[in-house]
């Protein structure tokens, strides 16, 4: 089933930007407008993501601010906040808005600045990120976000024998992929030994297991199935699943299975009348290397417990059976929180069009994006495919 189509996609380079939020978002939005061949006057609504601007930059009520900057003041504009899944939920609501017939053209996207450009150091930013943990029942323990995913990953290691070397292979792969993506924050050739030599952030995660703090923006233009054929290069949204799980994480039934991802993936595959086996590639939320392993299993791309070995054997590399994070993922491409979800949609759009440049995969017609928020208690899974 075609739920909507993406007809324009744009993003900034993810990295370090001195630019204010509206200008950073404007760069992505203008690129999306130009890609689609539309002007601001064609846009009916803005679904916008920014997770932490109030905390990091004393900047709130951003939807009308960025709408004003990109020439669409006056349209209904709303901001979403779902931690790291912020712009994926904005995108989901954009899809529903055109699917329902409420709007013809919706701009969905997000922006965030997380680097020291905002004037905050690592401990301060670590504290702000930890605000996604439960305020009463998790934050007072001193847990951090690397710590949250370390807790998931340690249990996965205990249950399935996943090793620190497996984790290192994910970092090595995604950094190698990042070298081919001009929009990536990082990208370098490292080996497993380098990764295993790094300082421990929250065990088992070393520095190379963790994604960077990044600045950046991304935006896509979403239109209805009926309207899509009047554009040059539509890519269809066949399914969007969105599920949540219990917070705090100790109250989740089985934390490391990331049930919300399994539920969201089930919804997305069912809507798209497809299965995990039919995915040509995946962009998953690898905020930490362990998170990629959990996601690869939760999406059904890799058998449960095999995420580590598959990464180590190259089966999730660009030339492998199921390429995961050919963009470099959050790990190398970067993770500007509120821009990450629609950044994945930009990547799916470009890969399926064959426009991904140096990191283009061969002949991919269908892919899946997985964007999670907080302790994976929010997860959005999107299936996109070539329009037929």
């Amino acid at each position, binding site marked *: 089933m075609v739920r909507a189509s993406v007809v324009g996609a744009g993003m900034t380079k993810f990295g370090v930007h001195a630019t204010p939020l509206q200008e950073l978002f404007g760069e992505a939005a203008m690129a999306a407008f130009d890609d689609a061949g539309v002007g601001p006057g064609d846009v009916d609504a803005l679904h916008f993501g920014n997770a932490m601007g109030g905390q990091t930059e004393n900047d709130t009520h951003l939807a009308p601010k960025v709408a004003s900057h990109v020439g669409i003041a006056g349209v209904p504009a709303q901001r979403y906040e779902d931690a790291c899944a912020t712009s994926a939920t904005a995108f989901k609501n954009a899809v529903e808005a055109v699917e329902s017939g409420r709007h013809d053209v919706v701009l969905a996207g997000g922006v965030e600045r997380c680097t020291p450009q905002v004037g905050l150091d690592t*401990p301060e930013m670590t*504290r702000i990120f930890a605000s996604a943990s439960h305020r*009463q029942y*998790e934050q007072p*323990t*001193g*847990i951090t976000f690397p710590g949250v995913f370390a807790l998931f990953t340690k249990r996965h290691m205990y249950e399935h024998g996943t090793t620190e070397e497996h984790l290192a292979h994910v970092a090595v792969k995604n950094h190698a992929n990042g070298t081919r993506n001009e929009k990536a924050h990082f990208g370098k050739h490292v080996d497993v030994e380098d990764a295993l030599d790094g300082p421990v952030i929250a*065990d088992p995660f070393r520095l190379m297991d963790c994604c960077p703090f990044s600045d950046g923006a991304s935006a896509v233009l979403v239109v209805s199935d009926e309207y899509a054929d009047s554009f040059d290069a539509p890519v269809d949204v066949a399914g969007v699943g969105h599920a949540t799980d219990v917070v705090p994480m*100790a*109250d989740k039934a089985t934390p490391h299975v990331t049930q919300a991802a399994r539920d969201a993936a089930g919804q997305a595959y069912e809507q798209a009348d497809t299965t995990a086996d039919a995915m040509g590639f995946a962009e998953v939320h690898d905020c930490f290397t362990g998170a990629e392993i959990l996601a690869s299993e939760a999406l059904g791309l890799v058998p449960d417990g095999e995420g580590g070995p598959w990464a180590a054997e190259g089966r999730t590399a660009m030339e492998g059976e199921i390429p995961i994070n050919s963009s470099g993922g959050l790990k190398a491409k970067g993770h500007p929180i509120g821009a990450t979800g629609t950044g994945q949609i930009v990547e799916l759009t470009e890969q399926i069009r064959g426009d991904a440049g140096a990191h283009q995969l061969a002949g991919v017609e269908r892919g899946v994006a997985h964007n999670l928020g907080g302790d994976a208690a929010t997860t959005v899974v999107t299936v996109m495919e070539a329009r037929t």
Partner: protein
Amino acid sequence: MSGEREVATDGGALPETLTYEGWCDGLKNGRLFGQACRECGHVGGTPKAACPHCGSRGLETVSLPTTGEVYTETTVNVPPAGVEERGYQVVIVAVGDARVMARLEGEHVDIGEEVRLAGYVSDEGGAPAPLFEPV
């Protein structure tokens, strides 16, 4: 999960409806309060207005065991602002049929090892978290 839970037997000692305030009071008095769902039997380690698994409002305050097994653990070397120490261990402990996130003091523990409630730690605003130690 294995283990037994103590159901309220001491009348007024357990709050009828568990709130954050009651959970903190319990913790500061060496007890871990949770909730058992009368409908689906789920036992949780933190207060809710309804069962997170079935939605029932029929939640009974229970006193959870104060010894349990490490379900998962990590050592945080890069703390958030406001935490002075580093290299501290954070654990999720299975206490009877529930789990709680906690700080650990003393020797490093691995998954599966037994730990017991040793008190609580407070963050810079005074919010408490359970503190466990190896048995």
